[in-house]
């Protein structure tokens, strides 16, 4: 990708609207290449018309997040799994 990107840290607020835990510190695995790493390390493009997070290894899309009036759309088909640390 040639456009300037931010990273998954920028998803903290928008994902924080949806989830009760901080997802940016979770480990996500890419459905395309299998690389695993912190959501904070994804390459993020946006914010308009929505946030698109790509794998830093293969640049395939792992997440899309669009905030509309009264609802948010989260597309996770590019993510196999999210490992979320939960202190006991």
């Amino acid at each position, binding site marked *: 990708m040639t456009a*300037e*990107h*931010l*990273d*998954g*840290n*920028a998803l*903290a*607020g928008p994902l*924080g*609207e949806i989830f*009760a*835990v*901080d997802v*940016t*510190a979770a480990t996500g695995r890419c459905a395309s290449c299998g690389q695993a790493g*912190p*959501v*904070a*390390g994804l390459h993020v493009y*946006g*914010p308009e018309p929505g946030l698109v997070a790509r794998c830093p290894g293969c640049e395939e899309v792992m997440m899309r997040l669009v905030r509309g009036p009264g609802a948010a759309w989260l597309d996770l088909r590019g993510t196999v799994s999210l490992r979320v640390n939960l202190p006991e």
Partner: protein
Amino acid sequence: MRRRLVWRAARLREVRVETSTARTLVLEVPGWPGHLAGQHVDVRLTADDGYTAQRSYSLAAPADGEVIELTVETVPGGEVSPYLTEVMEPGDQVEVRGPVGGWFVWRPASQAPVLLVGGGSGIVPLMAMIRERRRVAARVPFRLVYSLRDPERRYYAEELRRPDPGLDITYLYTRAAPDGASRPAGRVTPADLAEGGWPADFEPDCYVCGPTGFVEAAADLLLTLGHAPERVRTERFGPTGG
């Protein structure tokens, strides 16, 4: 389980000028729940016609009760930053939401030495870590490598000049170095990070923050120097901010 993320009113209490294009906003936020060093907030502006614009800014200091600090660089033509840096006056209000972000944070309980690498306004969350270390009187040693265009771009100049035992600072100037500087102006090199940082076998936690190009270059250099990828945390600021 944490509290639901809500927008809160924030009232500007005080402004500190950092450079000709950046200033620190001291904001009173009733109900602020506290935060970790390195976390950020979303700031939302609402126009008279209801149009809203929001941007994310790093918190520059530990919370002082319900008072928080942000340092904002003007992005020319930006929707949010020119208001914050040029228009907003003490007593004016914006909305903030946070704190958010649990990855690019330093916790005082951590025992590892710390290397902070900041490019330009990427110093802001790193300064929050430096101030938190001082606030809790942590014994963990910190090193800061601060890359900036020229000496006039330096944030927190006076505070960083004061001695802070256990904190070593290296300045890297990319365009114009001060008279008498031993290092010529130029981009960050492996030698800069080897001399200004820690040997990889000390297993320091590395925090790299700045514009995307700077972060990728500096993080790659740290990996080349042998630092483990899981010990190199990055946060990119981009021109899509503003």
